[in-house]
């Protein structure tokens, strides 16, 4: 009992002048912390409210029976997950889109790289070509989908594609109405390529312009062929960009919605073919369905599929022995 309250007060008072007040400490040197939160705060808040809470809420909902409510009471464990995995339509849409991704990712990749190289090499009107290929990126998916559906690939003679067929004396093809042969893929894939290639081309173009010309000069002196410089200089130099592009394309493929929905849906229904998982989930959980339990479970499954695909891809592509 040698230390009296008075003593403590005295020692605290003695220490005080050496430490800045709490407020000042929180604000950091030159108010750094304050400014950090002023700038970052609103975005973090938005991220939490509009992204993280909905994700967590959706995971929560996926364990409940929640028809027409987001505050469910009946816990069903993994029942919704089992239902979705047993659901033939959901499985087939996942399957279709794994195949779709395997096709569209390399195709878009190759086409954007090709256009980028062509545009980079061209000596005349480079700015013009660059803009022309990039412009479709600025077009709305919905608008493009409607033009593809109603003007270019309508089933009657007045549609652009059928008018062309007419010129060479062929019958009209109802592009979007038949499943054998599956012409609808032609419509969807051409729309998607038109919309996307330009964007990835710009990414490649930026990367191409950062490759030092001295590398090519050195290769030319060594007598390297065009193919050799592409294979041993361009491709390796594009590696980080290629990895990013492939990953974006992969995620994009699984998130397909806009052009599929607008090209193929008809008055409240969507055909069972070429049905992206997101479109199927839209009909389950939104629309008239309002079955948030199964919808959320499906969304979580889809997220896991994308995650696994991305991890596998990373393993095989990005970290393939750093040569």
């Amino acid at each position, binding site marked *: 009992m040698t230390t009296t309250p008075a003593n403590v007060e005295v020692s605290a008072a003695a220490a005080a002048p050496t430490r800045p007040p709490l407020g000042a400490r929180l604000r950091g040197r030159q108010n750094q912390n304050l400014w950090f939160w002023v700038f970052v705060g609103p975005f973090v808040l938005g991220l939490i409210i509009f992204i993280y809470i909905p994700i967590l809420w959706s995971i929560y909902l996926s364990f409940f029976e929640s028809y027409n409510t987001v505050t469910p009471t009946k816990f069903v464990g993994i029942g919704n997950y089992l239902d979705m995995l047993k659901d033939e339509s959901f499985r087939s849409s996942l399957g279709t889109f794994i195949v779709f991704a395997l096709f569209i990712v390399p195709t878009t990749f190759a086409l954007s790289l090709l256009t980028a190289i062509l545009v980079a090499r061209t000596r005349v009107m480079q700015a013009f070509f660059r803009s022309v290929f990039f412009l479709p990126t600025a077009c709305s998916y919905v608008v493009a989908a409607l033009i593809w559906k109603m003007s270019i690939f309508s089933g009657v003679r007045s549609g652009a594609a059928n008018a062309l067929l007419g010129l060479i004396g062929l019958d009209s093809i109802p592009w979007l109405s038949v499943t054998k042969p599956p012409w609808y893929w032609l419509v969807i894939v051409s729309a998607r390529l038109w919309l996307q290639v330009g964007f990835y081309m710009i990414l490649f173009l930026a990367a191409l312009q950062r490759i030092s010309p001295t590398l090519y000069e050195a290769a030319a002196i060594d007598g390297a062929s065009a193919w050799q410089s592409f294979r041993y200089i361009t491709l390796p130099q594009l590696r980080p960009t290629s990895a990013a592009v492939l990953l974006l394309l992969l995620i994009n493929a699984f998130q397909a919605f806009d052009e599929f929905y607008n090209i193929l849906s008809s008055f409240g229904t969507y055909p069972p073919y070429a049905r992206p998982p997101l479109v199927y989930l839209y009909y389950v959980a939104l629309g*008239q369905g309002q079955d948030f339990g199964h919808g959320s479970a499906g969304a979580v499954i889809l997220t896991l599929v994308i995650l696994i695909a991305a991890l596998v891809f990373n393993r095989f592509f990005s970290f393939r022995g750093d040569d």
Partner: protein
Amino acid sequence: MSDKTIRAGIDRRHLLTLGGGMAVAGALAACGGNTGRSSSTSAAGSGSGSGSASGGGAKVTLQQWYHQYGEAGTQQAVEGYAKAYTAADVKVTWKPGDYDQTTAASLLTAGGPDVFEYGNGPTIDMIKGGQVVDLSGLLGDAESDFNPAMVKRMTYDGKLWAIPQVVDMQLLVYRKSLLEKAGVTPPETIDDLMAAAKKLTSGDVKGLFLGNDGGVGLMGAPMLFSAGADYLNEDGSFGFDSDGAAAALGKLRELFTSDSLLLGAPKDWYDASALTSGLTAMQFTGLWTFPDLTKGLADDYGCIPWPAMPGGAKSVVVGAYGSCVSAKSTNVDAAKEFVKWLWVDQTDKQLDFATAYGFHIPARASLVPQAKTLQSGPAKDAAAYAQEFGHAQSSVLWTPKCATAFGDMMSKIVKDGADVKAEIAKVKAVAEAEVKRVLG
């Protein structure tokens, strides 16, 4: 799917025919739209503060939602009806776009409407989820005057959940001159229809138009009706695992492969243009196209019900928007009063709403003879068909999940040529589980 066809048809048509500017203006209005909820509480609660004790006390404010009808003047009309109501202050919200989705979602929140319309009444999940209020008794003595098929469709568990506003219908329309030229009479049976479609097809002009998907989305229900079947039986059991129904659905596949169907028209079945621009000789479409048909073809068109299969019956599909009251409303009684006033008592307004703007049939039989638009030509025939052959689009127990399974089945049968009975069996499994869930 089919549950939505009439409504969705109207929506699409309106969306497509409306000027973009008007749609944008509507969207902006909807975005800035006050739901009326806050003002309803303040109006009801601040009565004491205002002190200007007007005789009846403070009026409550009701928020009423409509989907966007395309016909000019409809919005002004419903706003006029709302203004004419004196017992409450009714605010009308006109919602373009995905009305069903927005409304269903808004019922989960406190920002939804007090009174709203919904196609064929509320969904079974809304009823089971306690989102809508029982409206039994509001029809009073007039009950027998309302279209019985629609009242039945909006009744569940012995209670009425919505009041039919106007009746819409779908039927088969044909161009008289093209049929005469080919020596074809309007078909009475499905086989007649298929023969006629073939005969009327020449080059780029096709015989029959059932939608750009070949009837996958539209014709499932009429085909079931033509075979005397339905989605579900009265007792909720599965309604179409019969040979007759399978044969009827198989006929659509035959049509699809016969090269006599119009596929991929620029505007789909809900628009008159395929018929008026000469792409097809016959088309299954809605009554709402009649003004456009008259404009484009004058009197060169006629209409008939969808033909029957052997042992079945002819049919026209009828549907109606029903006026519902949200259970989340803070003024449920006032909302019910208003619904009764507008859709039961005010017959002049109902007649005006049905006939002065769009082309509909009044929901009350006693008003049909007063509807000038329905007194001559094909429209008169159509109104008579609605009485004689009218068949509600679907059962209230036919949930969206059933509709999705049904749509998948139709696509596989019609487009892929899948085995009809095997596909029906798949839908049966889904439907039986769904009915059990809903009733359980």
